[in-house]
């Protein structure tokens, strides 16, 4: 294990997954530091689930290297399985077991404790973590969608995995449960667990993740903090609406010659424009207007939302076929 691998909880190098002639993941490179809640977002077919399945040892990639906590996932499958906790999308549960039995089975298989009482204790802890203590004796298949998600999350927590891979864990959860999930993931991260979580709802991930990345067509489009991803994908573009006391038409002409300004429209004594640039450049623009003597009555900034960015990505996929 080299020093580099030691610092990173997840390392993916040149990962490629093919289904016939379709490239699901295309030479993906990714690094996730320890203790992060790292989000992976992308439209349907972006390659999220394939990436997760390779990381979780459920699928052999065409090629590439994957390390979880320094362990080569492709070479040391059993070792990797001890450190990873995986929760699939639309997490299923068996029809013939009760919630407690389901969790006790996994606790035993993961060797959570050598004693039965120890395993029961851990199962109770995990059920409490997902607020399902009262459903311990319920049949797994009788649970609601949201409860099922929480049971599988509890299963994933049982063996205290060092790396957790959660594929769309929030789907099917009500707002309260989402908040609880967010808090639980943050608690885990603060205890040193690395959480890699996917969603196709970017704003949801932005709320719960310390950093995130966006995938499309098997490739990584951007990675970093939510702000950095927004800057990279939205090109820092925002819409500005400025209301002037007078000289609006003159202001339009002045603004037309400035860098980063586009799509200027004059309406109701105000001006709406698109601006691409950094916050400093935006501040310079404002200062310029004041220096030129344009008296501003009101100012409004509207950023393109994460959802709009993703919709843009998905629409460009559709256009390109």
């Amino acid at each position: 294990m080299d020093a580099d691998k030691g610092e990173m909880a997840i390392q993916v190098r040149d990962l490629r997954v093919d289904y016939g002639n379709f490239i699901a993941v295309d030479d993906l490179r990714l690094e996730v530091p320890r203790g992060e809640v790292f989000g992976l977002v992308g439209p349907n077919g972006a390659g999220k689930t394939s990436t997760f399945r390779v990381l979780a040892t459920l699928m052999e990639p065409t090629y590439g290297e994957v390390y979880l906590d320094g362990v080569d996932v492709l070479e040391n499958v059993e070792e990797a399985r001890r450190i990873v906790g995986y929760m699939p999308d639309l997490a299923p549960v068996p029809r013939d077991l009760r919630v407690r039995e389901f969790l006790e089975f996994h606790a035993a298989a993961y060797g959570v404790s050598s004693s039965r009482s120890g395993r029961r204790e851990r199962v109770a802890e995990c059920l409490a973590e997902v607020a399902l203590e009262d459903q311990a004796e319920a049949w797994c298949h009788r649970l609601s969608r949201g409860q099922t998600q929480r049971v599988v999350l509890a299963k994933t927590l049982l063996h205290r995995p060092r790396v957790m891979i959660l594929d769309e864990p929030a789907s099917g959860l009500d707002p309260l449960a989402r908040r609880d999930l967010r808090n639980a993931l943050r608690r885990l991260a603060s205890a040193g667990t690395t959480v890699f979580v996917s969603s196709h709802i970017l704003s949801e991930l932005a709320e719960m993740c310390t950093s995130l990345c966006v995938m499309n067509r098997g490739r990584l489009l951007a990675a970093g903090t939510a702000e950095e991803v927004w800057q990279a994908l939205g090109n820092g573009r925002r819409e500005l609406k400025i209301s002037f006391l007078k000289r609006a038409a003159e202001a339009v002409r002045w603004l037309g010659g400035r860098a980063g300004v586009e799509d200027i429209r004059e309406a109701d004594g105000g001006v709406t424009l698109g601006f691409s640039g950094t916050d400093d450049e935006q501040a310079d623009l404002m200062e310029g207007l004041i220096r030129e003597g344009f008296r501003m009555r009101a100012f409004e900034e509207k950023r393109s939302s994460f959802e709009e960015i993703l919709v843009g990505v998905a629409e460009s996929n559709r256009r390109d076929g």
Partner: protein
Amino acid sequence: MKQEMEKARKHSWWAVLSNPIFRRYARSRLRPRGLGVALLLSGLVAGFIFALARSVAMNRIGMEISDAERAPLVGLVVLQGVILFVLGTAQVAGGMTAERDEGVIDYQRLLPMSPLAKVLGFLFGLPVREWAMFGVTLPFSVWGLWRGEVETAVWVKLYGVMLSTALLYHLTGLVTGTVVKNRRWAFLVSIGLVFCLYTVIPQLAKFGLVGFQYFTITPVFREALPGLLPRDAGAAVETAQRLLPTVKFFDLDLPEAIFTAFSQAGLILTFVWMLCRRWRRSESHLLDKGWATGFFVWTQVLLLGNALPQVEPGNLFPSRGLTGLVGFARPQPPDANEAVAVIGVYGVFTVVMLWVFASMITPTAERQRAGWRRARKQGRKRLPVAGDAASGFGWVALMAVAGGVAWWIFARGVVESKWFPGQVVDGGVLAGFLLVTVALGLGYQALLEWRGARFVGLSMLLIGVVPLMAGAVLGTVRNSLTPVAAWVMGISPVLIPAYGAGALLDLSELPALLVRAVPAAFKFWTALALLGMLRVAWGLWRERSRIAAGEN
């Protein structure tokens, strides 16, 4: 604490009772409500068989007590067979498919247990209720064996082989459940496969391929039968059984139970190997190329070792076996055409085996492309020869040669026996047989690798089945069309080995209408098959070169 965790984390494959997967199924399948009904039913049926057979033996037939105690034994063995072999196998196949159907199989895949531990967990866990039902019937058997004074050696052999046979059948169900994706299909396919492997194929014993019956409990049950029946009936059966062949493996005289265990062990190991491969990597071929080739050779050795010793006593020939069984005074010497037919059946079986093994180790074009992408990325110029992505062509060529040689050895054993003095099977026949196995085996493999399973399936239907149907209809129209029918049926690769035996062996005494048609059709269609194989192999080579170069 950490040490405790590490200790607890390791699940030894042999500790079945503490295997979490076994315990998971013990929990779900041994719930009092479902189990109670199952135990009640099996107990009732076993009790009924026990009471009825004893009562009839004692009160109606007037047997002595120790004889009457034996009366229910055969019925109980049959009931136990139904519980373990039929219900157990269906449960294993259905249960395994249900795991995938429900989507929870990925959880099992992720468990940090060795593949073997997982296989054993499922193998003993899924049919745990059927084992419990079997257990309920045991007290009745134990009573009968004890009070009926059945020799220990008899019941130890019988129940030993019953257990190994149950494991073999359950493994068959497990393999089917792992491979077949649809739940209903898995159930049907597993029952079909069990029926085919352990009921239909053993019938080939009647045509010289006696080895296959040792995959079943039948030979040991037959051997144990005199000891299980009331003494008078047992003695009669024993007398009849003296006419049956004893089991031999080349020059070795082996007890039925030992040879059955030996035969089943190869199949059990192979099934376990298949399952371990699939648990390690779900995309793996069922068998790797080396194991498949080894298993093919092992099967041929098993068949030859078991069949050749039956030639001199004449037990290999269906007519002598039949006349012996029905008690004809003097069984006739085997007919020459009977010998040719037996050799033909061996050839057909060998070719079919080649196709089955070729299907198991031949990679799809997608898999090859992925393999080459990986190889290029790793800077390699070749694919690993035994890897799943590598071509199966060379391996099938090895099997084809082994099969051709085995077929020739079998033919020599039969033809150069005391039954056909002066007859010789020369090197020319070996060349002919090799031509058949190589052309048909490699042709199939190359086509499968080049054009895919769908194309091969359709081709087999059109070339393999339709000519048989057309020829059968033509042959019934009028006698003069019989040679034409022989030509048409000869198109089918399934029949070419049988034609080969008829055409190449001097022993063959074909009817007048076929005496020219069969050899001519054999030569023509085999030559065409060979040319076809070369053409397909060329196409495959070009396609593989393109894939290797990354052109598509």
